[in-house]
């Protein structure tokens, strides 16, 4: 499928409806069955797909509505990770978990969720995988000598899963690494681990790095300068960063370091319910184009829309699409 110039996409999650939150909690309280919850998830995902299509987004996801949060979706499936199932109060809380021995090499088992997405849309799709660095920060490590060793083994396991996703038809896979910004000193080994993760994976690899979006608020502050020049060694195709909330100052880094990869530019602030206008979006895209050629830019929200009410999230995506169209028109497309 040929994508237009300045393709639009989402970072991953779509608005989590209040009713779905309540039903997830009902499941944890053992008042509804796993079978019922799976059916509920199927229907919620179909609705998220439809919303993204209706908004006109070019590359869509399943809205990640099956996920309690970006960590547990993988951690509870990862062989060798011990989960304390009593450690959650709310469905979106993180499980307490640990690793007490070497991680076995086995599939995680999320490819079926990608297949479900593929079967309900003709749009280009993307599947998001939480990166080894972020997962490492949530695991109590009782076996590996250090975080890098644990993250490297996580990368090897997830590499198998990413290849399984490719077999299932995935052409774009996004690695979510929001904790880079909180632990910039880790970056040296993070890039090595990232390259282990993507080795031999025949798909377009996107890395999303933000400043956190837990509970709809940032977890850290600072500048993306910490990424450079080390990130230039990453064997990825696109770097997706947040610029709407933080402003476009760090765009200059792309002129200064001339990275070999594309830029996914965040033009929608997902930490406020104020809906951007198409003009605001267009202005943010134009700003990005001062630093990166249009052929190498994808337009996205800053991060997932998980915390936004559905009507707000939809309106923001519509504004993003409309604003991008304005710029395409200016470029003669």
């Amino acid at each position, binding site marked *: 499928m040929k994508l237009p110039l300045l393709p639009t996409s989402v970072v991953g999650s779509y608005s989590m409806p209040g009713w779905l939150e309540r039903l997830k909690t009902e499941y944890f309280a053992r008042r509804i069955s796993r079978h019922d919850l799976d059916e509920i998830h199927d229907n919620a995902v179909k609705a998220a797909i439809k919303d993204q299509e209706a908004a006109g987004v070019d590359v869509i996801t399943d809205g990640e509505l099956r996920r309690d949060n970006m960590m547990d979706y993988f951690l509870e499936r990862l062989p060798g990770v011990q989960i304390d199932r009593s450690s959650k109060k709310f469905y979106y809380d993180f499980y307490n978990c640990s690793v007490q021995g070497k991680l076995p090499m086995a599939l995680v088992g999320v490819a079926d969720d990608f297949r479900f997405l593929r079967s309900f849309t003709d749009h280009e799709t993307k599947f998001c995988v939480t990166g080894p660095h972020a997962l490492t920060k949530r695991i109590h490590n009782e076996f590996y000598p250090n975080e890098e060793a644990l993250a490297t083994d996580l990368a090897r396991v997830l590499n198998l899963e990413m290849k399984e996703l490719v077999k299932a038809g995935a052409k774009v896979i996004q690695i979510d690494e929001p904790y880079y910004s909180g632990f910039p000193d880790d970056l040296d080994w993070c890039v090595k681990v990232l390259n282990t993760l993507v080795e031999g994976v025949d798909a377009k690899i996107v890395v999303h790095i933000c400043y956190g979006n837990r509970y709809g608020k*940032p977890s850290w502050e600072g500048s993306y300068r910490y990424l450079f020049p080390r990130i230039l060694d990453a064997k990825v195709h696109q770097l997706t960063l947040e610029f709407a909330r933080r402003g476009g100052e760090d765009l200059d880094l792309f002129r200064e370091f001339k990275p070999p990869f594309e830029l996914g530019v965040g033009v929608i602030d997902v930490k406020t319910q104020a809906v951007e206008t198409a003009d605001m979006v267009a202005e943010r895209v134009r700003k990005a184009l001062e630093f990166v050629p249009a052929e190498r830019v994808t337009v996205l929200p800053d991060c997932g829309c998980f915390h936004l009410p559905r009507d707000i999230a939809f309106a923001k995506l519509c504004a993003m699409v409309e604003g991008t169209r304005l710029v395409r028109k200016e470029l003669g497309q």
Partner: protein
Amino acid sequence: MILQLNHLPRKTSAASAQDIVVTLQSLLEEGHLEHEQFANLCVHLDWIQYKQNFREAVTVIPCAEEPSGGLPFFEVHVDLRQIAQGALRAEMLKAMAPANPDFGHPRAVQEERVLLEEFRPFRTSIAWRFNRLYWQRLADWEKSTGRGYEEALPGGKSDANHPQAVADGVADFWTLVRDLDVKKQLPAEIFVLEIGVGMGTRAGLWLDRFHKLDQERGTNYYPRVRFLLGDYSPATLERSKAAVRAHMDQCSFVVLDALNPMQTLSFLRHKIQHIHMTNVYDNLPDEEMARRDGRLYVVEVRAYLPAGDAERIAKEYELSARDLGRCIERLLEAGPEHFADRARGVNFWQQVWAAMRLEERLVCVDDVRAESLPGELDRSRLDEILREAPSDVRFHLNSGALESFRNTLPLLSTRGYLQVQDIFVTHWSEYQLGFHGPGKLDGSIVNWVNGLLLRETAERAGYDVHFAPFRYREGSRTSILYTTQRE
């Protein structure tokens, strides 16, 4: 009949309970009370610590309608502090008259009251307009009574201004700032916000202390501090300037509504490192709910003046009974200057306020519109929260405090924290162990704050809430709420 001894001084409990049982038994035997009514009666014995409050010595609280179609139950609340010796039977008869028209009481209670409004949730009661007037015309009130509002507090002064509490708070804040600095995450401007600044005393103490600590440690953070003093009263903000005179370069004065600080300060979203409030939540619009036999009820109120008080006030101000209501309305709209003699206007205000009482009734939540629950608190969530509560409990919803809380948290920076000094209920059982408002403090209203609902709201917004006792003054009932980031 259920008799509930809620929170009584030990000496009076047994005797009072006996008196109540004997009195009600005699009313039953004499035919003043039907057997079915007796069976549906719940009597609460209270000891209300606020000398000024909105209750009669005996208050009957009917249930508007029994959802199952059975006989409505009603509650009788007896304030043993108010009841004069030997007056129980007469007070009981008088209060129960509307519940039983056959009581044969010479005048229906309704006729003994000048109603100021129709039944409604407390939050929208006229009582809150009086509360607002008090803060808007504080100087008039203080001039009339000859004492500042802080002197009217139970301890005679505000816990906000305790020097050691302020010093400890500053030390904690300095540690945070230092940590951010070490991690290269300290912004150029360090924003601090106090909401509800009173005389500005705490802000002044805080800045004095921070400046000194900064100098002692040679960190040079003080020039980067932007201290915002926020209050909805421009007059209060003006008055607070004297207390921070030495730090004017660091201070900004912002008129804001404590219910929604974000509305005014949206440009500081995620930028404020520390927000402090003392005794703000306990004075924000509030309503109560009750759970009885598993069902949830809103406590609706109707403000009134006892007929005797109304007659006395009307006579003193040469008003007809009809004009009294109009005069009160004008007072609330225009303040005491509605009267040609302003001091006389303040006196009228004070007399009306002192006499004002609240009638109450219970309305099943299924009967009221969903909007009566604040913000993100819907019925299913409330039911979830109440799972841990006793089956029969009356509690404060503190919708104003919840609204304020929810609209304050987004201002906090990534590592920022909120600190609230107030009177909190932190366990459901406390509602059965004491009276938690509303009470009157001079011209304002005071309610204890439901910390359990705040905790729930905070968790959903990404914060854990902790309560620590205010250990700086012996006997203080204040607690300190502070937030930490939730993972």
